């Protein structure tokens, strides 16, 4: 077994040998190695996070017909480091009347809720933090901690804007958790397991082709969960002046900010894992784990780019519309889709593969079409309530 085939195991064995050679008890060595592995993963992610700042700024600039950072380093690549230095040397303020412990705990929890997600991200066939048999649920659980961090930040800031922003954000997150969970169950049904590793292993056909609508709903719910535009009412600058993190400055704000970026990237990754085959790309992942990681990162970046695309293209939605959209449209749709997929999956079991794919795809398209029709007739009725019926076009006089 060479380093190139299974780098982590080789490295771990090597370290094990060294540590036990130093006379360390085996269990302690295992714990130490585990910590080192976590440290390595987090370091990589933080570096990636710094890079993401640059990506985000570059991309938003292009969307807005600007050039973006271009002074420091090639293509402005050094810019994020300058940002970090600025954040670090800024004054670390704490508002009067703030609940100090909670106030300081919130940004950490926020960052943590993102980082722990990577425990179940399969980077390569042999690289998976924990192969939880409930990996899918774990994602939702981590989201719950993110929710907690936001409400802690909003409450502890002792600021009305922060509190209102937190309320809104929490309401959105709690609500959109439901359709997200429902769509996450679609890969679960198709796989027969909740483990992320098993889900990827099962994707000889991308689940996107079996449940395209599921992928779309997952993307929408993920964007809402992230609190990014068009679902960023919680931090609407024009009315809440940045929402729950209004009182934070310096590195604490930096942690919220970096957490959000990494969160977006992570959900891009989850989109890839759940619906686009994760690290798999025509057998490339079998060649080398490093290639597999590259494939996963590439797919995650595409997902991330999609999220950014949406963010910088669409307008902000009002909070009650956002919640109504979720409870009255997205959640029922997700549940209907879940049932349809489960039913079709059972019905089409044992049929030829092409028929299976076509049947699943068409059933999804059908559900999507029906849902859009319902939404369209509803919106027409709403419009007519406001504007009155559409005027009949008068025929030209002969």
């Amino acid at each position, binding site marked *: 077994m060479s380093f190139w085939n299974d780098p982590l195991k080789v490295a771990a064995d090597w370290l094990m040998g060294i540590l036990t050679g130093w006379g360390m008890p085996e269990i302690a060595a295992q714990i130490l190695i585990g910590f080192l592995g976590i440290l390595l993963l987090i370091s990589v992610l933080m570096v990636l996070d710094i890079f993401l700042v640059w990506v985000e700024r570059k991309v938003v600039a292009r969307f807005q017909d600007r050039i973006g950072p271009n002074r420091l380093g090639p293509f402005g690549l050094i810019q994020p480091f300058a940002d970090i230095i600025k954040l670090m040397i800024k004054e670390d303020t704490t508002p009067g009347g703030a609940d100090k412990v909670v106030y300081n705990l919130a940004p950490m929890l926020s960052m943590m809720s993102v980082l722990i997600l990577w425990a179940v991200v399969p980077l390569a066939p042999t690289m998976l933090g924990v192969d939880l048999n409930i990996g899918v*649920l774990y994602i939702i659980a981590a989201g719950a*901690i993110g929710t907690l961090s936001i409400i802690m930040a909003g409450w502890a800031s002792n600021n009305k804007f922060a509190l209102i922003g937190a309320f809104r954000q929490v309401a959105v997150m*709690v609500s959109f958790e439901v359709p997200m969970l429902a769509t996450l169950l679609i890969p679960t049904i198709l796989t027969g397991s909740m483990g992320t590793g098993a889900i990827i292993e099962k994707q000889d056909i991308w689940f996107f082709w079996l449940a395209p609508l599921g992928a779309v709903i997952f993307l929408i719910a993920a964007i809402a969960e992230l609190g990014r535009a068009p679902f960023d009412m919680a931090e609407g600058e024009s009315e809440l002046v940045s929402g729950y993190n209004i009182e934070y400055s310096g590195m604490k704000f930096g942690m919220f900010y970096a957490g959000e970026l990494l969160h977006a990237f992570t959900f891009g990754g989850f989109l890839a894992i759940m619906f686009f085959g994760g690290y798999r790309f025509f057998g490339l992942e079998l060649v080398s784990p490093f290639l597999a990681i590259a494939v996963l990162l590439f797919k995650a970046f595409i997902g991330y780019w999609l999220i950014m695309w949406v963010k910088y293209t669409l307008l902000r939605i009002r909070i009650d519309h956002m919640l109504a959209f979720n409870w009255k449209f997205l959640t029922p749709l997700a549940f209907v889709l879940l049932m349809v997929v489960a039913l079709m999956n059972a019905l089409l079991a044992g049929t030829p593969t092409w028929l299976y794919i076509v049947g699943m795809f068409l059933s999804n398209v059908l559900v999507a079409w029906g849902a859009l029709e319902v939404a369209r007739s509803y919106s027409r009725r709403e419009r007519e309530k406001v504007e009155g019926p559409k005027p009949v076009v008068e025929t030209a006089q002969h």
Partner: protein
Amino acid sequence: MTGEQITFLIVALVTLGSGLMVVTTRNLVHAALWLVATLFGVAVTYALLHASFLAVVQVVVYIGAIAILFIFAVMLTRKDMRDQGPQMNRNWWFGALLAVLTFGGLYFLLQGWTGLSKTAAALPSGFDAVGELGNALVSPDAYVLPFEVASVLLVAALVGAVYVAFNPHSGNSGK
């Protein structure tokens, strides 16, 4: 003492400690946050018991929904965010006595039970607790009926909660 026992003791002490903080701290938001810590400790206890599904559901349901709801409720029922007056009622000493008595009684009863020092058998290899649980929840010869009853209860409770908490005089009912 094995590693597992040490872990359990630490988790149990932390959980009980934060549980005590829940019932004694003056600031209700802090109490709710201490509740989160307690619930997290219980989730870890589930994990120690190899009930991973319960652990994750504990986090999703309790921390993600119930604790958040508590914090919401605390904030909605406070005119300002400071606490005034005592947090304990006049009979708190009697409540404490009763709690201690209950614990003592339970401990006494447990002492007399023979199955107490039982240790867990190793899990069968390849045992899929989540799959088994899923089957048990939906198979007709197991618990599908209680499961459905629970879901009906939940729906009824939510509808009732919306009805009870809905304020017809506030402005949010109209468009």
